[in-house]
């Protein structure tokens, strides 16, 4: 096992898949000469050249629409949205085209497309540049939505995404590129659509993913100091959603909280809670609590922004609440 950063893990996945399959190319803003806004594709332009590392104009519709077209005729583009907020500029292509074309034409072609998008708040970028709208995209059948929380998962899931024959939105978190973690040596992939227990415990279940995982792991450490053992289930893929590990854990602990960075209303947590009530109602010992972002557009001011985002102490408080 080697310990690497999230940035390195994603970068390795891209490079390995580009080396493995000449149909894979990268298309997006500042992916080439600049080296990627978050330095994920640093060095790629020199290694692969402009044919495979395509710096585009600022034109999100042309990026996603163009990648869709290329995928339909047999290439495997990895399109990069500088931030997920710009997916709204290309919303028609993401949800109206990518998610529907194959179905609508009776499965005549495949759409092997990966859209990498950077999301998340906490960097004082203001309301339009700080969103965590993952749930919005997970709403649409036809699109798969993956959002890893560890370098190991990021690498393995991205490799699977690139090999997959379907359109996949791969959401990374802007504040997690420096997160370090163990990654297996050599070639490996991780299947899309599988949740994972990231920490075992018996007192309550914390269901989360991506940034929420980082926060929940810290919260679990704090809870452990007080003798509370939290089990953490990492969704990793939001659609298709794998509820098995969640339900299994819940049937053991009978208490749960759901942690996500996005807004609470109509969010990922809402989906998880309903699914637990639908599928494991008899095991519920306490109302399930959602920890999420306050219902406001994110402000620039640092103190206010942090107050609006879910924090470790919010998770600790919620955990104690469900254990009352």
């Amino acid at each position: 096992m080697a310990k690497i950063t999230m940035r390195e893990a994603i970068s390795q996945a891209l490079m390995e898949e580009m080396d493995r399959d000449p149909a894979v190319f990268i298309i997006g803003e500042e992916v080439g000469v600049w080296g990627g806004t978050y330095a994920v594709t640093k060095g790629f332009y020199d290694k692969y050249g402009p044919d495979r590392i395509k710096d585009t104009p600022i034109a999100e519709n042309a990026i996603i629409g163009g990648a869709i077209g290329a995928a339909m005729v047999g290439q495997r583009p990895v399109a990069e949205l500088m931030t997920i907020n710009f997916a709204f500029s290309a919303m028609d292509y993401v949800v109206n085209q990518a998610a529907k074309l194959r179905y609508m034409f009776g499965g005549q072609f495949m759409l092997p497309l990966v859209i990498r998008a950077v999301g998340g708040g906490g960097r004082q970028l203001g309301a339009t540049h700080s969103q965590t709208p993952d749930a919005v995209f997970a709403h649409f059948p036809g699109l798969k939505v993956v959002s890893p929380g560890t370098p190991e998962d990021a690498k393995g899931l991205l490799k699977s995404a690139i090999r997959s024959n379907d359109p996949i939105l791969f959401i990374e978190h802007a504040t997690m590129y420096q997160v370090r973690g163990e990654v297996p040596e050599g070639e490996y992939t991780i299947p899309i659509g599988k949740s994972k227990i990231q920490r075992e415990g018996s007192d309550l279940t914390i269901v989360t993913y991506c940034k929420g995982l980082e926060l929940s792991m810290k919260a679990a450490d704090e809870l452990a100091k007080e003798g509370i053992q939290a089990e953490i289930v990492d969704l990793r893929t939001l659609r298709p959603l794998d509820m098995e590990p969640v339900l299994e854990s819940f049937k053991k602990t009978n208490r749960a909280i759901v942690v996500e960075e996005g807004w609470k209303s109509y969010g990922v947590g809402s989906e998880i809670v309903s699914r637990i009530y639908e599928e494991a109602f008899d095991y519920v010992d306490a109302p399930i609590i959602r920890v999420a972002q306050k219902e406001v557009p994110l402000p620039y001011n640092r103190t206010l922004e942090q107050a609006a985002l879910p924090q470790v102490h919010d998770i600790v408080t919620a955990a104690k609440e469900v254990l009352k």
Partner: protein
Amino acid sequence: MKKEQLLDLYHQMVLIRRVEERGAELYQAGKIGGFMHLYIGQEAVSTGLIAARESRDRVITAYRDHGVALSCGISADQVMAELLGKATGMSKGKGGSMHMADVSKNMWGGHAIVGGHLPIAAGFAIGDQYAKNDNITICMFGDGATNIGYFHEALNLAKTWGLRVLWVCENNQYGMGTSVERASAVNEIRQKAEGYGMKNSQVDGMDVVKVYEAAKEAMDYVRKEGQPYFLEVDTYRFRGHSMGDPERYRKAEEVKQWQENDPIGIFNRQLLDKKTATKKALDEIEARVDEEVAKAVEFAESSPEPTMEDLYTDIYAD
């Protein structure tokens, strides 16, 4: 232009430069966060352009907006306070560097979605057309913004409906690290306006007087004819795209060459050569700016933070 007005423009350009130089220091010191895009090198554009407007004319721009805010008459105090995220900033600390606006001064904001504000600018003009007045909307944006669909929809609508918009493209040669040649089908950006049958011209953006004159002429046309106009202003940003840009995409010599064309230096020489002002007078202006900026920093640093209640204000009007 009269002497006082010219000196006022000089004051404004130096003020923009110094506010941003101080801002960059405060950013390095961790007192300003988020993205901060400096206008250094482009001061002649907002200064010359906005000097040509009437106060009833609206201005809207992108996130590179400190200079535009100051040119619209927003005080250095308020700009600095917004940069520091204080309650006394014009956006109450909720907007930050990229979202400076004071609608009482007809400055309708810095906008951070590239090209996103262009249809909104067209919308201001729709509002004015509907109200049957002859106000102008001055919409500023970068070269990179002319490649996104919003731009084309807005220009087409403006010409088709006869909207009073002065479209001003600040061509600083790059959108982040991508040069105009690498991103745009035409190198002369004003050619895009040709495609919409829109009157257009190009001007040297390092010369504030030329910018002013071109803007004046364009605004007269827009107001009289009830038609949009496209003005391409050639300029250059001396600093990185935003703070922390490694600038791998351009050569140091290129930057140096443009810096020799410093818009403040050019204007300084013009004022001296034409004997509009003495060196002493210009030095005095610069000293006054230094005081103003020091006071602005003091004001911003001693201003209160927004409160936790402010987190929930202004989400809805009702």
